[in-house]
């Protein structure tokens, strides 16, 4: 039994590498074939995957079903968009801060703002659990959504165009491959980071908080701050994904903050496999494939997405990862 466990663990690791490799190769090949559209499509997969990896930490490993992660995704996007707008207009931020178009600085902002917001939302919502938690996270995201809609300075309902992408040090981010490489590096970093976190002592405590929080408290670890910490880290990762998404599309709109977006981030995880490292990457890939290819035939492609989703939930719990490498292992 032990042997097969190790084998499965190995298979999963191999699969993780294969998926990442395939994504990388696809981007290179499409770029080499001069298919900029498809390179951007791969970047889209990668960004959704980052958002999913972020949420997976809270949802898959910590058992916190957040239906409000679009708030962080959208805020990340808005910070990138607002920075770009001020930079192109040569105006300063609210507090007289100089505007910047450097991604690294912008991401720092995203990290700080998303962490603070997640701390606030988490402090209130983690006092509850189950359905209450789902609905409260949803409601907080709605708050942010309506704020964005009714705030005309930054585009209101129409959203905000980004006239030119934010810069990454001296690189030409308008080049599809350069932009892909930035996204891909961020994905690698977040996957690596979350794989460390999951296996660490903190990760153990987090997963026990999901399995049985009475057990966790009984050994002397309070589940609440453990979950809160994971929620914050999760929000920050999703926020970075949002910043990248805004730059990819050169556009941010309240859609990024909508609850459908929150639902879609959960879908990335579910299609791939909840609580599996590569789950969100596989899921995001499947999502974008459906969107692109069925979406090419009919504008009602989400009907098919819904059917796939329903079938996976009802009959194939565990997603693609389970079909390929079997049950999840705890090592």
């Amino acid at each position: 039994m032990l042997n097969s466990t190790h084998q499965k663990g190995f298979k999963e690791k191999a699969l993780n590498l294969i998926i990442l490799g395939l994504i990388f190769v696809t981007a290179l090949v499409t770029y080499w074939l001069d298919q900029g559209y498809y390179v951007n499509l791969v970047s889209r997969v990668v960004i959704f995957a980052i958002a999913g990896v972020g949420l997976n930490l809270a949802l898959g490993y910590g058992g916190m079903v957040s239906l409000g992660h679009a708030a962080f995704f959208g805020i990340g996007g808005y910070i990138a968009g607002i920075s770009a707008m001020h930079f192109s207009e040569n105006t300063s931020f609210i507090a007289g801060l100089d505007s910047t178009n450097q991604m690294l600085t912008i991401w720092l902002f995203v990290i700080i703002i998303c962490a603070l917001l997640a701390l606030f939302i988490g402090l209130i919502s983690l006092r509850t659990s189950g359905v209450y938690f789902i609905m409260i996270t949803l409601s907080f995201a709605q708050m942010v959504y309506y704020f964005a809609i009714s705030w005309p300075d930054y585009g209101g309902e129409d959203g905000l165009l980004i006239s030119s992408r934010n810069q990454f040090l001296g690189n030409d981010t308008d080049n599809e491959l350069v932009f892909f490489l930035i996204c891909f590096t961020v994905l690698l970093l977040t996957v690596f980071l979350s794989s460390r976190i999951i296996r660490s002592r903190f990760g153990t405590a987090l997963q026990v908080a999901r399995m049985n929080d009475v057990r966790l408290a009984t050994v002397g670890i309070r589940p609440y701050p453990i979950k809160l910490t994971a929620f914050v880290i999760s929000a920050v990762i999703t926020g970075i994904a949002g910043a990248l998404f805004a730059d990819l599309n050169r556009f941010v709109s309240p859609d990024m903050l909508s609850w459908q977006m929150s639902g879609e981030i959960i879908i990335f995880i579910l299609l791939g496999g909840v609580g599996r490292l590569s789950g969100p990457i596989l899921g995001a890939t499947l999502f974008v494939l459906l969107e692109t290819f069925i979406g090419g035939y009919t504008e009602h492609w989400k009907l098919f997405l819904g059917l796939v989703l329903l079938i996976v939930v009802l009959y194939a719990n565990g997603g693609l990862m389970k079909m390929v490498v079997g049950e999840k292992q705890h090592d």
Partner: protein
Amino acid sequence: MTNSTVDTSNSTKLGSTVLKIENLTKRYGALTVSDSINCDLKQGEIHTLIGPNGAGKSTLVGQIAGWIKPDSGSITLNGTNITNMNVAKRSRLGLGRSFQVSCLAMELSAQRNVMLAVQARQGSSYRFWKPAASDQSLIDEADKILDRLHISEFKDTLASQLSHGKRRELEVACALALQPKVLLLDEPMAGLDPASTQGLINFLQNLKAEIPILLIEHDMDAVFQLSDRISVLVYGKLIFSGSPDQIKASPEVRKAYLGDD
């Protein structure tokens, strides 16, 4: 073998009070489930709480462990008032417990369950980088405790696949890993086969010198074998407290409890 827990046993004098419950009262509407209960646990002893079903034992355990908030009264652990502390904090102060219904991380192996407790005792759950599963300081200590309870052979078995009896022993192992000052064991013998029951009795008899035990138990054989003191809880009231012999001789207890059996 007991090196890791030596300091706790020597730091407190034999016979001194470790856990003290004073005037503990809890009402649910008109029903008084804990009626100003006074009770204590001294170093080196096993104090057993018995009583018919519905006597309020679970509520009392809940209040000691911290899941239920008493209406009034106080609980003191080693001189510290813990009445208003949360569950986790009480555990860190040295209150180890096992549950009536197994409460483990079922998706983890027996070893990982004990390692979690070791990790908690080391006070280091906010480490984000080093893998916990291969952490030798956690493995060694967990293995020692599993060994002590003679369940080493099951260390790689998932808690969900353990037999009912092994789960109870695993819970005791997790509690011990916390190096507690007091053990609160809620019906640890329930569901054990006779051999395992005797094994656990012998184990607890040896353990009590090291860690005093507040025991809730239905198995009267075990109770009379193990207990230094027995208290009887009926309708939320402690009606009698004394040695096993006194309990057996008490007409009051016979009438209220043993007689009804």
